[in-house]
Protein backbone atom coordinates (compact mmCIF):
# COMPACT_ATOMS: atom_id res chain seq x y z
CA UNK A 1 0.00 0.00 0.00
CA UNK A 2 0.93 3.63 -0.29
CA UNK A 3 3.17 5.03 2.38
CA UNK A 4 3.41 8.52 3.78
CA UNK A 5 4.03 11.06 1.05
CA UNK A 6 5.39 14.59 1.36
CA UNK A 7 5.46 17.43 -1.11
CA UNK A 8 7.51 19.11 -2.30
CA UNK A 9 10.59 16.95 -1.92
CA UNK A 10 12.77 20.05 -2.07
CA UNK A 11 11.94 23.67 -1.39
CA UNK A 12 14.32 26.59 -1.81
CA UNK A 13 13.13 29.95 -0.58
CA UNK A 14 14.49 33.32 0.41
CA UNK A 15 14.76 34.64 3.92
CA UNK A 16 11.52 36.25 4.99
CA UNK A 17 9.26 34.28 2.66
CA UNK A 18 6.33 32.06 3.61
CA UNK A 19 6.35 28.31 2.87
CA UNK A 20 3.90 25.45 3.14
CA UNK A 21 4.91 21.81 3.39
CA UNK A 22 2.35 19.09 2.79
CA UNK A 23 2.00 15.61 4.26
CA UNK A 24 -0.32 12.80 3.11
CA UNK A 25 -0.42 10.12 5.81
CA UNK A 26 -1.19 6.47 5.31
CA UNK A 27 -4.92 6.05 4.76
CA UNK A 28 -6.76 5.35 7.99
CA UNK A 29 -3.96 6.51 10.29
CA UNK A 30 -5.42 8.80 12.92
CA UNK A 31 -2.16 10.04 14.42
CA UNK A 32 0.15 12.37 12.48
CA UNK A 33 3.49 13.82 13.53
CA UNK A 34 5.89 16.44 12.24
CA UNK A 35 9.60 16.32 13.00
CA UNK A 36 12.54 18.43 11.90
CA UNK A 37 15.95 16.92 11.14
CA UNK A 38 18.96 19.19 10.97
CA UNK A 39 22.22 18.07 9.42
CA UNK A 40 23.98 15.50 11.57
CA UNK A 41 21.15 15.28 14.07
CA UNK A 42 18.26 12.99 14.78
CA UNK A 43 14.68 14.04 14.13
CA UNK A 44 13.30 16.58 16.58
CA UNK A 45 9.60 16.55 17.47
CA UNK A 46 7.50 19.52 16.36
CA UNK A 47 3.79 18.69 16.63
CA UNK A 48 1.39 15.76 16.95
CA UNK A 49 -2.19 15.54 15.66
CA UNK A 50 -4.83 13.14 16.80
CA UNK A 51 -7.56 13.46 14.18
CA UNK A 52 -8.06 17.11 13.32
CA UNK A 53 -6.73 18.59 16.53
CA UNK A 54 -3.19 19.30 17.61
CA UNK A 55 -2.78 17.15 20.71
CA UNK A 56 0.75 18.38 21.40
CA UNK A 57 2.37 21.38 19.72
CA UNK A 58 5.00 21.98 22.36
CA UNK A 59 7.84 21.22 19.93
CA UNK A 60 7.10 24.13 17.60
CA UNK A 61 10.09 26.45 18.02
CA UNK A 62 8.19 29.75 17.86
CA UNK A 63 5.02 31.37 16.57
CA UNK A 64 6.32 31.49 12.99
CA UNK A 65 5.52 27.79 12.78
CA UNK A 66 1.97 26.54 12.48
CA UNK A 67 0.37 23.30 11.30
CA UNK A 68 -3.15 22.25 10.39
CA UNK A 69 -5.00 19.05 9.63
CA UNK A 70 -8.54 20.28 8.84
CA UNK A 71 -10.11 17.00 7.75
CA UNK A 72 -8.08 14.59 9.82
CA UNK A 73 -6.01 13.36 6.90
CA UNK A 74 -3.66 15.67 4.98
CA UNK A 75 -1.59 18.06 7.07
CA UNK A 76 0.19 21.27 6.15
CA UNK A 77 3.13 22.73 8.05
CA UNK A 78 3.33 26.47 7.56
CA UNK A 79 6.38 28.61 8.23
CA UNK A 80 6.15 32.39 8.14
CA UNK A 81 9.04 34.84 7.71
CA UNK A 82 11.51 32.05 7.11
CA UNK A 83 15.01 32.32 8.54
CA UNK A 84 18.23 30.61 7.48
CA UNK A 85 18.11 28.58 10.67
CA UNK A 86 14.89 26.98 9.48
CA UNK A 87 16.85 25.07 6.82
CA UNK A 88 16.41 21.38 7.56
CA UNK A 89 14.61 18.26 6.42
CA UNK A 90 11.02 18.27 7.63
CA UNK A 91 9.68 14.78 8.25
CA UNK A 92 6.09 13.68 8.57
CA UNK A 93 5.01 10.41 10.16
CA UNK A 94 1.73 8.67 10.86
CA UNK A 95 0.57 5.79 13.00
CA UNK A 96 -2.69 3.83 13.15
CA UNK A 97 -3.68 4.71 16.69
CA UNK A 98 -2.39 7.18 19.26
CA UNK A 99 -0.89 4.48 21.38
CA UNK A 100 2.66 4.97 22.51
CA UNK A 101 3.80 1.56 21.37
CA UNK A 102 2.76 1.86 17.71
CA UNK A 103 5.65 2.47 15.39
CA UNK A 104 5.50 5.63 13.37
CA UNK A 105 5.72 5.40 9.58
CA UNK A 106 7.82 8.17 8.08
CA UNK A 107 7.65 9.94 4.77
CA UNK A 108 10.73 10.79 2.69
CA UNK A 109 10.81 14.35 3.98
CA UNK A 110 10.91 17.83 2.50
CA UNK A 111 14.33 19.44 2.34
CA UNK A 112 13.88 23.15 3.04
CA UNK A 113 16.69 25.53 2.16
CA UNK A 114 16.37 29.16 3.18
CA UNK A 115 18.83 31.42 1.35
Amino acid sequence: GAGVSQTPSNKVTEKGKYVELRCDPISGHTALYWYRQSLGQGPEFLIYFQGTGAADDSGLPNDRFFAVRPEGSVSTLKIQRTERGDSAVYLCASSPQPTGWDEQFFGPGTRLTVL
Partner: protein
Amino acid sequence: AQSVAQPEDQVNVAEGNPLTVKCTYSVSGNPYLFWYVQYPNRGLQFLLKYITGDNLVKGSYGFEAEFNKSQTSFHLKKPSALVSDSALYFCAVRDRNYGNNRLAFGKGNQVVVIP
Protein backbone atom coordinates in the same frame (compact mmCIF):
# COMPACT_ATOMS: atom_id res chain seq x y z
CA ALA B 1 11.99 14.33 30.09
CA GLN B 2 13.12 11.65 27.68
CA SER B 3 16.37 11.42 25.77
CA VAL B 4 18.62 9.03 23.90
CA ALA B 5 22.39 8.85 23.59
CA GLN B 6 24.15 7.15 20.72
CA PRO B 7 27.77 7.58 21.74
CA GLU B 8 29.52 6.60 18.52
CA ASP B 9 29.38 8.73 15.39
CA GLN B 10 30.37 5.94 13.05
CA VAL B 11 30.63 2.18 13.31
CA ASN B 12 32.88 0.36 10.87
CA VAL B 13 32.58 -3.39 10.50
CA ALA B 14 33.80 -5.96 8.00
CA GLU B 15 31.19 -7.82 6.00
CA GLY B 16 30.26 -11.05 7.76
CA ASN B 17 31.30 -9.79 11.20
CA PRO B 18 28.86 -9.05 14.01
CA LEU B 19 27.44 -5.55 14.10
CA THR B 20 26.53 -3.66 17.26
CA VAL B 21 25.12 -0.15 17.45
CA LYS B 22 24.89 1.25 20.96
CA CYS B 23 22.01 3.16 22.51
CA THR B 24 21.30 4.32 26.04
CA TYR B 25 18.16 6.14 27.10
CA SER B 26 16.82 8.31 29.88
CA VAL B 27 13.17 8.47 30.92
CA SER B 28 11.41 9.25 34.16
CA GLY B 29 9.16 6.20 33.88
CA ASN B 30 9.28 3.06 31.76
CA PRO B 31 10.28 3.19 28.11
CA TYR B 32 9.01 2.18 24.74
CA LEU B 33 12.13 1.81 22.58
CA PHE B 34 12.53 1.83 18.82
CA TRP B 35 15.21 1.45 16.17
CA TYR B 36 14.93 3.05 12.75
CA VAL B 37 17.24 2.97 9.73
CA GLN B 38 17.68 5.74 7.19
CA TYR B 39 19.11 5.20 3.72
CA PRO B 40 20.30 8.18 1.63
CA ASN B 41 17.45 10.32 0.33
CA ARG B 42 14.85 8.08 1.92
CA GLY B 43 12.67 8.30 4.99
CA LEU B 44 13.22 6.48 8.23
CA GLN B 45 12.28 2.82 8.14
CA PHE B 46 11.15 0.99 11.26
CA LEU B 47 13.35 -1.95 12.31
CA LEU B 48 12.07 -3.12 15.69
CA LYS B 49 10.63 -2.06 19.01
CA TYR B 50 10.52 -3.02 22.66
CA ILE B 51 7.21 -2.65 24.47
CA THR B 52 7.23 -5.18 27.26
CA GLY B 53 8.05 -8.83 27.91
CA ASP B 54 11.07 -10.60 26.48
CA ASN B 55 14.14 -8.39 26.64
CA LEU B 56 15.45 -9.71 23.32
CA VAL B 57 13.51 -8.28 20.42
CA LYS B 58 13.83 -9.53 16.85
CA GLY B 59 13.09 -7.28 13.90
CA SER B 60 13.47 -6.82 10.17
CA TYR B 61 16.47 -7.86 8.04
CA GLY B 62 17.99 -10.08 10.73
CA PHE B 63 18.40 -7.30 13.31
CA GLU B 64 17.73 -7.76 16.99
CA ALA B 65 18.07 -5.62 20.09
CA GLU B 66 18.35 -6.31 23.78
CA PHE B 67 16.61 -4.21 26.39
CA ASN B 68 18.63 -3.87 29.59
CA LYS B 69 16.77 -1.94 32.24
CA SER B 70 19.59 -1.80 34.78
CA GLN B 71 21.96 -0.32 32.21
CA THR B 72 19.21 1.72 30.48
CA SER B 73 20.44 0.38 27.17
CA PHE B 74 18.88 -0.93 23.97
CA HIS B 75 21.78 -1.94 21.71
CA LEU B 76 21.07 -3.03 18.15
CA LYS B 77 22.80 -6.15 16.89
CA LYS B 78 23.16 -8.27 13.80
CA PRO B 79 25.16 -11.50 13.82
CA SER B 80 26.59 -11.12 10.31
CA ALA B 81 26.70 -7.70 8.65
CA LEU B 82 26.03 -7.17 4.95
CA VAL B 83 27.33 -4.34 2.75
CA SER B 84 23.69 -3.39 2.21
CA ASP B 85 23.39 -2.69 5.96
CA SER B 86 25.47 0.46 5.47
CA ALA B 87 23.13 3.26 6.53
CA LEU B 88 22.27 5.68 9.32
CA TYR B 89 20.68 4.10 12.39
CA PHE B 90 18.55 5.94 14.94
CA CYS B 91 17.44 4.85 18.37
CA ALA B 92 14.30 6.46 19.80
CA VAL B 93 12.45 6.38 23.11
CA ARG B 94 9.06 7.32 24.42
CA ASP B 95 8.34 7.50 28.12
CA ARG B 96 5.14 5.48 28.58
CA ASN B 97 4.36 7.37 31.75
CA TYR B 98 4.76 10.80 30.24
CA GLY B 99 1.41 10.98 28.48
CA ASN B 100 2.45 12.08 25.03
CA ASN B 101 3.26 10.34 21.79
CA ARG B 102 6.41 12.14 20.79
CA LEU B 103 9.54 10.15 20.07
CA ALA B 104 12.92 11.39 21.28
CA PHE B 105 15.66 10.37 18.86
CA GLY B 106 19.38 10.02 19.26
CA LYS B 107 21.70 11.77 16.83
CA GLY B 108 22.22 8.61 14.84
CA ASN B 109 25.07 6.27 14.03
CA GLN B 110 26.52 5.90 10.58
CA VAL B 111 27.25 2.22 9.94
CA VAL B 112 29.79 1.37 7.27
CA VAL B 113 30.12 -2.28 6.29
CA ILE B 114 33.38 -2.91 4.51
CA PRO B 115 33.38 -5.58 1.79
